[in-house]
């Protein structure tokens, strides 16, 4: 097991290398200059700027210099936020997104699993239909519609919660909720489907035949197995939710890293783009590894190779 984990971790290095290389090179090959604005920059000033940000010379040499710094853990300076290193920006913004996403995922599990289990037990009854309709709505209403609606209701009309901002516990409720809803919906559907499969298995019939109470059957035996697909879903889902959301962060004015995924491309900021892509890829690889390991620990049938 340990060697397998180690091997996966080592294999992550070339993957990350390719991802970062592609991001950096594509950013430099794309039309548009990170320094351009409405007023044309005199050529000698542009040359000096490119020199300061290590973006002078051929794209290949820029790339090699960038990778040279990256090996030492230096993600270089952002061309958009002058005088700030990408390390500095990530150090400030990443914890915000991770905590926000972590809470949101926790909430999603707390809503999704009970809802899915409830629906599975009452399969094809009214309650099931209602729960699955709610899940469908949660999945299909995009956050840029849900968030403004909730802000309108709880912030602007009722004055119960702040409309945006970051810095006090009440400001976290709406963004966490908006972020959690689509995940909660997906988890509910996943739980229901997998629980229904499990409830039809022989060992459940045996348990019932032995006179085990239904609660016991459900919570101790069925759910334990039914949770497995949820763990493989959680790997990539967590990587996505922990690295922030452009929509939620912009609408609620939250200083996380989600907005940098899009904005750094629009600003043609190659270092920032490569930096956030690196963080996301690392999260994704790591979370996938964790979920694979968990599954192999919980399910004897699965062995990670």
């Amino acid at each position, binding site marked *: 097991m340990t060697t397998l984990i180690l091997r996966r971790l080592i294999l992550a290095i070339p993957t990350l290398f390719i991802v970062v290389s592609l991001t950096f090179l594509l950013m430099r090959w794309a*039309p*548009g*200059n990170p*320094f*351009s*604005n*409405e*007023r*044309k*920059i*005199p050529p*000698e*000033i542009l040359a*000096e*700027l490119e020199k*300061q940000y290590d973006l002078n010379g051929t794209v290949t040499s820029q790339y090699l210099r960038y990778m040279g710094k990256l090996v030492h853990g230096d993600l270089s300076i952002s061309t*958009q*936020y*002058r*005088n*700030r290193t990408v390390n500095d*920006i990530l150090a*400030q*913004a990443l*914890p*915000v997104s991770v*905590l926000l996403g*972590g*809470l949101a995922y*926790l909430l999603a599990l*707390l809503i999704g699993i009970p809802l899915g289990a409830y629906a599975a037990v009452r399969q094809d009854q009214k309650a099931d239909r209602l729960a699955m309709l709610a899940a469908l709505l949660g999945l299909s209403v995009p956050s840029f519609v849900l968030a*403004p609606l909730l*802000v309108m209701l709880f*912030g*602007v009309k009722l004055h119960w919660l*702040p*409309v*945006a*901002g*970051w*810095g*006090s*516990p009440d400001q*976290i409720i709406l963004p966490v909720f908006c972020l959690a809803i689509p995940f909660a919906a997906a988890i509910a559907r996943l739980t229901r489907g997998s629980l229904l499969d499990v409830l039809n298995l022989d060992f459940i019939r045996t348990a019932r035949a032995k006179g*085990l*109470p239904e*609660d*016991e059957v459900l*919570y101790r035996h069925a759910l334990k197995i039914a949770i497995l697909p949820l763990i493989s879903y959680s790997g990539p889902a967590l990587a996505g939710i922990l690295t922030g959301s452009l929509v939620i962060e*912009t*609408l*609620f*004015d*939250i*200083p*996380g890293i989600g*907005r940098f995924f899009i904005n750094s491309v*629009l*600003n*043609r900021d190659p270092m920032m783009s490569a930096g956030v892509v690196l963080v996301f890829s690392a999260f994704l690889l790591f979370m996938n590894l964790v979920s694979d390991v968990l599954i192999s620990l919980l399910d004897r049938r699965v062995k990670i190779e």
Partner: protein
Amino acid sequence: MNASPASRRRIPAAYILAAWLAGILALALAFFYFFGGWTLSEPADLTICNGDEPQTLDPAIITGQLEGRLALALFEGLTTRNAKGDIVPGMAESWQISPDGLTYTFHLRSDAKWSNGMPLTAYDFLNSWERTLNPATASQYAYQLYYLVNGEAYGTGKLKDFSQVGVKAPDARTLIVTLTHPTAFFLELTSFQTLCPVYLPGIEKYGNNWMKPPNLVSNGPYCLKVWRLNDYILLEANPYYWRKVAFQRIKVLPTSNATTCLNLFSSGKLDLILDKNSVPASLVDKLREKPYFHANPFGGTAFVRYNVKRKPFDDLRVRKALALAIDKEDIVRKITRAGEPVAETLVPPGNKDYIPPLGPKYNPEEARKLLAEAGYPGGKGFPNVQMLYAKRSTPEQVAIELQALWQQELGITSITLRGQEWKVYLNTQSLIDFDLCLSAWVGDYNDPQTFLDMFVTDGGNNLTGWSNPTYDHLLDQSQAIPDPAQRMKLLQEMETILVDQDMPIVPLYYYVGISLYRNEKVAGFEPNFVDDHRWGVLYPPEKKP
């Protein structure tokens, strides 16, 4: 395992779940408080939405308006602006201008100090200007010091000896500036952030971190207390500033989403919204009736660029025909909707000494005639042309409207739209790789020259391929004349050539700035040409100075 099912069922699962949830929540909140940068609430007298996260606070490097607003709250030049936007003494309490208009002698305040209590001297200005001009600083606005004798030579690296540049400090309180031309707007430039002094010992000590709190030493009305990326900036009154400011603590939010801005404003969390981009465009019609809605025209113009090097726009008649066919009223009424005045000229109204020429008026009849004369009667045979615009909501709508207007009035059906993402658009525009291009320009100072000098032959911002020796000559002449009235006449002649005679561009409308604030909360915010509202002159109405 040995527990009986009955005893198991008595475990109140709901309570365990609740306790677990409460524990996690408490842990998470504690974590947020310590690592998430939560400060609970940072009290401030005034909360301003500045539209986005500033790229930098270095006055020499700044190019954008939102960075400029912050920099001018932190730093102050030799001159500054009052609420009306007029030039008034800043770090210099007085100055003399020589009769030929070439030499300015500034006398600094005896109580001029940095925010750390150190005295601010003429040498600080001298050294800061050296830094701005120095090619190694890579200041995009360094050209504002090119008006100084040898300024351009030093700025482009041709001259290495700064002592030959036209700025001298004979003593700690006197700064003498020598210009190449009598530059009528020089006192406007000295109030701009590019010419503000910076605290060089701090830059030497902290390197790239010099502008982060608490390292930043400033000389303006405020000093920098907190700067959290994409979160907020906190400014506090500078105790060593020569004047008392009314608002002691200003919180600046980088909120970029217009709806969020408006929500924050409506719920009383925000006192001042400064930017048109921070107000939802679709709500402008409704907001206009509110007492907190304030619109003020300022020095910016939206216009169309022709590529005069390409067919069919090398033909003046075609350029004129398209210009005459635009119903500009229709554009401002349908699309921009904030009360923008339609533009006949490139230079916006607002300079009391400048009388703008009259441009061509909407005349579709005449336009059809001209187009027929040029060989495209009813738009027949008009070549395929592309109109470039930045893919943002207003330019996109204007482009679509123009396309429709030209089809409707002139029968031209061969204009295709080419919307590009902002940075790509800038690139395409600078390569003059377009037939038609939707552009805009905002003046840096209140003088027609900031608009008209764009279109000199091969000027970096000309970008039309147009060239007229008379125009170039008039600009040279105007710069050499010390008499302001005469100079304005020459500038007017230039603009006549630009908008009425040769027409490499078609002005569409002048910009209007929108700000939201409640009159009972904020005063001292008056419309001005450069849309320059110094935060240091704002005050709560009950504390009128």
